[in-house]
């Protein structure tokens, strides 16, 4: 795969529009006890030997910068290649590009500098643990111009509604992409394209005042491009709303799902925290939960996900909840169906209860 470069394009990605994304983009939302959504895509790329990855981001990227740093935790701090977070600092007075084409136009040097032949484009909301070798091979085998990574789900969930669906004929060729629930192939947002073709289509889009590279540059040209679908069989999920976010966190409490996403020989890479092992005291009662390192558990935790460094005091009860980094739950507090963002303190005897289908969210750094 050393002839492939990575691009994580966050420009057209749905924002969750709630307290979790007040100061961070969706890609930076904490997930699964120690990760952020973007870790899954980034790990998949890194483990597929993609050594150069760019991230197109327009706003609220500060926490991404913090989280990703130099890329060292993904082995992406390289002299050749590496990780490039590309915020919108554009100063070309002749620039007429729009939408995500603005990113492509202003970061053209990133593509030109690389010796890679192909570009693997992705968003951050398709959650799976994989390497892209088979996908890449499929692209070569079918002689495709563009290959979309698609998947199918037994049950259509609310989060799948807003996904693009690929309409595919018998031999796997994509003839259009629609919001059409009769199409079974859900587009993951991941696609592969030759770099030279990408640059050509970018130029064409800009000249024609287009603003969405994938729709206007790729799909609109399905008559003249060979667009293939690669149907991915692995376990995956899509997280693009609070509801799907909450449900997918909870799904990990099942040992099978946990083992599938966090395969031990193929770990998901994330920022290293160097926390001590989690400490359980005599008074702790913990069942069916995911607990990160650095926690101190003196209270009761059930059906919940605890991020790093959470302190649960004696007599506190946490049920069906997600508690992010460094929260302090004081004695006697009772939490059910809540999502507590980073650095929150829940004071003594406080009771907070949301609904499963509508969890109660507390924004970061609050004291409630």
């Amino acid at each position: 795969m050393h002839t492939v470069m990575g691009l994580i394009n966050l420009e057209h990605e749905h924002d969750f529009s709630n307290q979790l994304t007040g100061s961070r983009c969706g890609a930076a939302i904490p997930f699964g006890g120690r990760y952020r959504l973007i870790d899954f895509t980034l790990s998949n790329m890194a483990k597929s030997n993609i050594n150069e990855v760019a991230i197109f981001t327009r706003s609220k990227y500060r926490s991404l910068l913090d989280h990703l740093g130099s890329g060292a935790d993904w082995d992406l701090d390289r002299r050749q290649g590496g990780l490039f977070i590309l915020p919108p600092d554009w100063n070309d007075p002749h620039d007429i590009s729009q939408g995500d084409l603005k990113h492509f136009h202003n970061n053209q040097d990133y593509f030109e500098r690389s010796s890679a032949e192909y570009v693997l484009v992705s968003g951050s909301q398709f959650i799976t643990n994989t390497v892209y070798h088979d996908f890449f091979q499929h692209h070569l085998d079918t002689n495709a111009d563009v290959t979309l990574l698609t998947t199918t789900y037994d049950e259509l969930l609310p989060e799948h509604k807003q996904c693009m669906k690929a309409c595919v004929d018998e031999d796997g060729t994509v003839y259009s992409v629609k919001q059409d629930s009769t199409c079974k192939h859900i587009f993951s947002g991941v696609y592969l394209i030759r770099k030279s073709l990408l640059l050509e289509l970018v130029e064409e889009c800009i000249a024609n005042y287009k603003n969405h590279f994938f729709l206007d540059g790729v799909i609109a040209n399905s008559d003249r491009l060979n667009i293939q679908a690669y149907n991915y069989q692995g376990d995956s999920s899509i997280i693009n709303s609070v509801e799907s976010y909450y449900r997918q966190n909870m799904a990990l409490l099942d040992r099978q799902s946990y083992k599938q996403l966090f395969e031990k020989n193929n770990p998901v890479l994330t920022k290293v925290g160097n926390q001590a092992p989690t400490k359980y005291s005599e008074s702790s009662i913990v069942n069916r939960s995911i607990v990160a390192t650095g926690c101190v558990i003196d209270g009761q935790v059930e059906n919940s996900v605890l991020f790093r460094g959470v302190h649960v005091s004696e007599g506190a009860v946490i049920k069906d909840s997600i508690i992010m980094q460094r929260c302090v739950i004081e004695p006697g507090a009772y939490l059910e169906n809540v999502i507590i963002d980073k650095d929150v303190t829940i004071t003594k005897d406080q009771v907070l209860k949301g609904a499963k289908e509508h969890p109660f969210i507390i924004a970061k750094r609050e004291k409630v």
Partner: protein
Amino acid sequence: MKKECVTMLLAGGAGTRLGALTKNLAKPAVPFGGRYRIIDFALSNCLHSRMHTVGVLTQYSPLILHKHIGVGKPWDLDQKEDGLTILSPYTVTNGGNWYLGTADSITKNINYIEQYDPEHLIVISGDHIYHMDYDKLLQHHKQKEAEATISVLEVPWEETSRFGILNTTDNLRIYDFEEKPVNAKSNLASMGIYVFNWKTLRNYLEEDAKSSTSSHDFGKDIIPTMLADNCRLFAYRFEGYWKDVGTIESYWEAHMDLLKEEQPFSLDSDSWRTYSHDSNLAPQLIEETATINRSLVNNGCIIAGKLDHSILFENVEVEKDSIINQSIIHPGARIGKNVELERVIVQENVTIPDHTKIIAQQDEEPIVLSHTVGQKDADAAISHTIQ
């Protein structure tokens, strides 16, 4: 490039008293505290003390140790200008030379040290569990205008016969050094941590290298010679937790110390974090059937059984109806169903099959399980138990 101070970390010891724990592993690489290896404490001390030029002397079974240290990233020692250098034995035009004693290993790396032209040399060992700011030791050394300073610890009088004991004036000047004295006159024990004026030490090392009777050891040879020459030797009093986990018993005890209500030593201090390698495993999964009492559990563990006063390193799985009591489980171990372990140390990647019961009595040394336990071994082990 000149550096004021170079640190030499002795990590070549075989740690033979740790038995099976060090069979194919240098002692500094033995796992400790649920996620660390012993050397992490010394390396993290270097980071917190801002000692950025560190030579690590290795000799015995260094593969895992080298892999763990890697390029020194976790300790910010992967720098261009100074950072960490692993110093293994090497050959020169007239043949090769192994390191013979602690002092000899420094002598053989004089060239490494000289390239930084340091004023001071700190010598530490990778064998101990403690938090220490070496910079304070260095400042003390400079303030006393010492030629050598030895870090010391007050030990209980009844244990003085196990240590190198220093006798000092009120001013902390050392006038006498006794190795394992029967009737100690002081209870200040050497921790094997030294600061030297480099130029002075260099002379003593070169003299010592010529001696055919010397064992080339700091405690046995260099320090006594310096004392005899009336050098300015001072003690530096260290206060805090310091443990030489040199035997199976003390290794197990140091772990139980971590679980005490009033912790004598804390792993989760925010101001003195211990850094280590991270395997990027997922957070631990605690299952419906789990019960956990006073235990430490690391990433990647899946717990369906009962833990009591135990320490689980990463990637350990404990199936249901099993009871792990006062035990230490190294990375990757698999504990089957209905297993009972008490005062047991399970080594890396060992599998304990269903229905095994292994208990070391309170007055016995904890049992170390080094290989996957078949039914036969389990039966044999049971002879150790109170059953």
